[in-house]
């Protein structure tokens, strides 16, 4: 059957395209090409399956419905992905990830149904292993693995989505850890009994499904909203594993390869992301200084020293008659949606002959690359965005540093105070500049929920207010000066 052989080749090409695509995504220059390559590989694999798989290589039955599903999915997916704002990207990724998880869970349900119809256990044997004993137990094991992992990934992703959209608040149940353990353990226990043959019937399948869904919710609910990128990356690798289960089930190489690849790459990516924030994964999951504690810690503010408030006019003069201004964008800039005004200010200053650069900290904002995405969106030229290692030596040649809604990434405690939770994280060394202006709304703490000594230094001036409003004021001041 030539069709089967061609399909095998397509699967091989698709698997290679996934690996190469991910490899190319390692470098900004080739990243887009990598994504495209993986997409092409995926297309080959999907259409290959529809038209070449099945008995005799005649393709799938129900081609019409399948194609209809593809068309509808493509339409919705494209529209959603195109419409979403740049700053809404992480929740979008989470949503799509959830869809993949749901898809994996559905597959498991249907496969289980089919096993039951076909007269239960005995029939399924040759489908998986070709051997007589243990075959159907194996199949059940895979089905339940796909079901549980897929379901957790689905409900967890939806909660993560809700959190990032600010529709769901962080919530810790009493005895959260215990409840989590009971729910998850229950799901595993039922699955184990069914695989072992001690339990039977579709009802138990649905109970497992339900428990897994609940566990996904409980798992993500207490984690701070700001930690969601890490959680999404983790759920992402879960879905990868669920897809790999599917590959095992159908002896389908491309599902297996793609799933395992994402499973392993996603896990490492999660760890790497945690490292970039100087935290461990358990710390994120159990929540040592995540979102909900920020407010509390911030309460004990104003601990030492006095602050110096400055007016927008002062700052405008300083900048206009300076040689070099470095802007440090942070989470506050993103929240205030102030990137466009910021760009306007920058252009204005450049016209006045002032050199303006942006200092990009790798974990500024709430997702990696947040600042790049944000500023690029408002058309800031790419070579004005300077990464931490390269800008740090430049601060001492700079007249004014404008810290816009950033906090932790300029906190000197990371260098000087070994007891600080962010100790050891590399920071932007703004104190080396002649003047530091910090724009934020209050003296509240940032993500890590800790005091920032920088605000009390003599060279620091505080300019309070919403980032967008203050920046607009600055633009007007510079214009009218």
């Amino acid at each position, binding site marked *: 059957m030539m069709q089967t052989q061609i399909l095998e080749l397509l699967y091989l090409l698709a698997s290679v395209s996934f690996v190469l695509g*991910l490899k190319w*995504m*390692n470098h*900004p220059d080739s*990243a887009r090409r990598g*994504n495209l390559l993986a*997409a092409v590989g995926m297309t080959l694999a999907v259409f290959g*399956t529809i038209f070449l798989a*099945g008995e005799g290589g005649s393709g*799938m*039955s*129900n081609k019409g*419905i399948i194609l209809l*599903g593809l068309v*509808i*999915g493509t339409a*919705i997916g*494209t529209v959603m*992905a195109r419409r979403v704002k740049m700053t809404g*990207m*992480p929740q979008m*990724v989470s949503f799509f990830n959830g*869809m993949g998880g*749901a*898809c994996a869970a*559905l597959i498991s349900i*249907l496969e289980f*149904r089919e096993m039951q119809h076909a007269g239960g256990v005995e029939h399924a044997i040759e489908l998986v292993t070709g051997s007589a004993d*243990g075959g159907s137990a194996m199949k059940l094991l895979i089905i339940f693995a796909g079901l549980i992992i897929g379901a957790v990934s689905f409900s967890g992703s939806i909660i993560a989505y809700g959190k990032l959209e600010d529709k769901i608040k962080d919530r810790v149940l009493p005895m959260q850890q215990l409840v989590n353990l009971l729910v998850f353990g229950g799901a595993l226990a039922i699955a184990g009994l069914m695989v072992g043959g001690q339990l039977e019937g579709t009802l138990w399948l649905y109970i497992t499904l339900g428990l897994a869904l609940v566990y996904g919710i409980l798992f993500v609910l207490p984690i701070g909203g700001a930690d969601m990128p890490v959680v*999404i990356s983790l759920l*992402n690798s879960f*879905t*990868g594993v*669920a*897809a790999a289960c599917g*590959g095992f*089930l*159908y002896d389908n190489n*491309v*599902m297996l*390869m*793609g*799933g*395992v*690849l*994402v499973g*392993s*790459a*996603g896990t*490492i*990516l999660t760890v790497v992301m945690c490292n*970039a924030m100087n935290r461990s994964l358990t710390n994120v999951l159990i929540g040592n200084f995540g979102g909900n504690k920020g407010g509390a810690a911030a309460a004990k503010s104003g601990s030492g020293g006095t602050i110096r408030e400055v007016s927008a006019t002062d700052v405008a003069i300083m900048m206009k008659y300076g040689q070099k201004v470095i802007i440090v964008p942070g989470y506050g800039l993103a929240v205030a949606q102030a990137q466009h005004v910021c760009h306007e200010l920058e252009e204005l200053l450049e016209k006045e002959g002032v050199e303006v650069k942006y200092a990009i900290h790798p*974990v500024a904002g709430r*997702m*990696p*690359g947040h600042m*790049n*995405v944000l500023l*690029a*969106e408002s058309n800031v030229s790419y070579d004005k965005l300077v990464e931490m290692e390269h800008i740090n030596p430049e601060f001492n040649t700079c007249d004014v540093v404008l810290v816009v809604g950033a906090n932790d990434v300029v906190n000197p405690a990371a260098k000087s105070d070994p007891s600080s939770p962010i100790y050891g994280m590399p920071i932007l060394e703004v104190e080396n500049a002649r003047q530091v202006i910090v724009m934020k709304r209050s003296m509240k703490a940032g993500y890590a929920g800790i005091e920032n000594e920088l605000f009390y230094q003599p060279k620091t001036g505080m300019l309070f207010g919403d980032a967008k409003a203050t920046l607009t004021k600055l633009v007007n001041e510079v214009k009218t000066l």
Partner: protein
Amino acid sequence: MQILEFIHEHITYIYLIVLMIFVGIELISHVPSVLHTPLMSGANAIHGVVLIGAIIVLGKAPEDDYLSLGLGFVGVVLGTLNVVGGFVVTDRMLDMFKKKKK
């Protein structure tokens, strides 16, 4: 002994999985942190390959089994969402990272 039996039966799968895990680890270990979000998104699109499973399930559903057809159909739609949405979002993100002429 059952574990040996298991390894024996699935030995090529095990090799494939182990190697793929190595590939995944090595690929990601050297990524600059600004690319973490697009990379996560790209990986997200790739695990959309689970769509193929949904196609297989739907493709073998009997024509009169409406529940299977219905659920399978939903599976295909969701899987497609994952794939298409994933790739498009990633593409849009990466578009932000390319150097722009001033």
